[in-house]
């Protein structure tokens, strides 16, 4: 069974996530992982869902999700076809003129550049929300193509666990 990534753009409104997640449980689809965050448009969120299954299952999940009125757009990928990192992926419109500046800023923030094309740079960054917000603020003046931002993962310090 292959792992597939569903990239789902939804209305950034209360209750939308439970509609999306509820659909998985009631149709008997399993979620391997889920990450939600707002995109460059404040009224649009991106839900990134990883599922295991065959093409037919992924097609059915995608079609069922598409029926939700609050779902704007869906794309599915094989997991091996895309970069997958925790917390934040940011794709910069970085043509020749600004490319060096963007790379330098990424280095200062200890971010990794994980994908390059003639016109874009895709940067991966992990860290707390302050660090990410600060980085986003810096990148804002260069032209952000898109952002996928994951939820924060937390574990308690020390020996005590839940």
């Amino acid at each position, binding site marked *: 069974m292959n792992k597939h990534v569903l990239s789902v753009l939804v209305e950034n409104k209360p209750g939308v996530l*439970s509609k999306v997640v509820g659909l998985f449980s009631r149709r008997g689809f399993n979620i391997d992982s889920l990450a939600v965050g707002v995109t460059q448009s404040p009224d649009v969120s991106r839900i990134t869902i990883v599922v295991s299954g065959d093409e037919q299952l992924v097609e059915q999940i995608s079609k*069922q999700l598409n029926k939700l*009125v*609050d779902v*704007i757009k869906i794309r599915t990928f094989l997991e091996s076809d895309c970069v997958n990192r925790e917390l934040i992926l940011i794709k910069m419109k970085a043509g020749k003129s600004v490319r060096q500046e963007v790379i330098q800023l990424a280095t200062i923030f200890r971010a990794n550049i994980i994908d390059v094309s003639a016109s874009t740079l895709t940067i991966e960054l992990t860290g707390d929300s302050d660090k990410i917000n600060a980085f986003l603020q810096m990148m804002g003046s260069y032209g952000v193509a898109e952002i996928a931002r994951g939820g924060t993962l937390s574990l308690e310090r020390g020996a005590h666990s839940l």
Partner: protein
Amino acid sequence: MKRNGAETVLAMMEENGVSVLFGYPGAATVPIYDKLDQFSIRHILVRSEQSAAHMASGWARRSGKPGVCLATSGPGATNLITGIATAYMDSVPLIAITGQVDSKLIGKDAFQEIDITGATIPLCKHNYLVQDVSSLPQIINDAFYIASTGRPGPVLIDIPVDILNAVWEFTMPPKEINIRGYKPADKGHELQIKRAMTLLSEAKRPLVLAGGGIVSSRAFAEFREFTKRFRLPIISTLMGIGAIETTHPLYYGMLGSHGKKAANYALDEADLIFVLGSRIADRSVSGPRILSSRTNLIHIDIDPAEIGKNTVAKIPLVGNIKTILGQILALSPELGLSYPDTSSWLAELDSKRSEKTLQPREGAYVNPIYCLQELSKAAHGSGVFTTEVGQHQMWAANALSIEQPGGFISSGGFGTMGYGLPAAIGAKLASPEDTVICIAGDGSFQMNLAELASMCQCGADIKIVLFNNGCLGMIREIQKKRCKGHYVEVSLEGSPDYCKLAGAYGIQSRRVERDRDVPGAVREMLGCRGPYLLEVMTDPSQSSI
């Protein structure tokens, strides 16, 4: 113009063509009731909210427009759930409006508070919790659009009572609807249609499987012309009954576990099947994947998720069935294909027909099949039938002559006992000129029989044919087959005398116990003015097939 939220709701309902509203008042919806008399909307007072949803469903299925029901917060809203789920499973356009507690109290477990938008996610096409009075007009317009376009379905709007009371400067939203996440399909892909017609030209034993989509898209004329032009035999699902009159020479009946022999034979022997607006669900086809591995399927549905869900289609065609059949009719002469002569295939299917016109028998009990045949005869094709759920539903599906387009209204997908009586009331209000007949069993009938009162209150002239076998016949039948006759909790002892009960409501009634009394009783029922209950005594051991 200053309006409060309640007036806004009612004004937007009027704007969307609502003339009848099925509801039950409560504390959270009092503001709506306070303004009701200022608008030209007739309110039908139900006796339980579940019935409000069923009535709205019956209304929608007869009129082709969304039915509207209204309930208060908490238990009012949860009582709607079964009705909403019933509509969802049968793709019925429905608007459910629920009152909610004051928005400042939401989440505080206030009196009669329930998260109804959360609870109805899996059984609504879409739902809203209104957070601002000024968003109401657009939400209501969007809700009507979503409920009635694409694959129809229920949409719920939950409105906190403070928003119903909030006053604002009313402005009408723009007429055109633009919801970026909702773009229903209409036209079918032309290349796919050409491929489908090529496949038809190569077929020897083509078949049409008519589903509920034909009825909900009101594609009656196109469907008639399509099957006539290519002389295609028709079988139907339960929901597809009424897509074409059941007396049509090309119609071979309902398929499936409780279906007709000729229909199931046709399904087994066909080399090409046009599946029109059907989910190919488990009660219709037990092995849908086997079916598609053996036969070429052309699956036409407005919901792309239905194609490939239960079966694999050789040619998927997404769009509105009415539009696609229109495209097929327009395109087929230009394609220059020659289509198969189906004469010998039709003759083969005719030889499998098993319907017989029954004669009255002597002895105790009425044969329900004979009764339904006599009823069909007496109704002269004018009947619109609703059913409850159980054995009588299967008898009705197989034995009634349905000649009115969409004239068979039954809970197919969800199998909701108690649907038939309220649905009949809704259907009658939608088209008062129809003879609306509710076929019931004594189990289902008792689920929502309180609606006899709302039927009388609103003056709906419904004829009820109640098959009384004193038990839950369908479950008894299952216990007979699977549990070797170990009958548990299927006896309905303690039930009332139904004729006396009808009398208590001022409803005319008659009981028949023998076949020979049926023709007279049926004619008396149809000839009388006002509601009528015909109690038909049947044998508990009578099978549903």
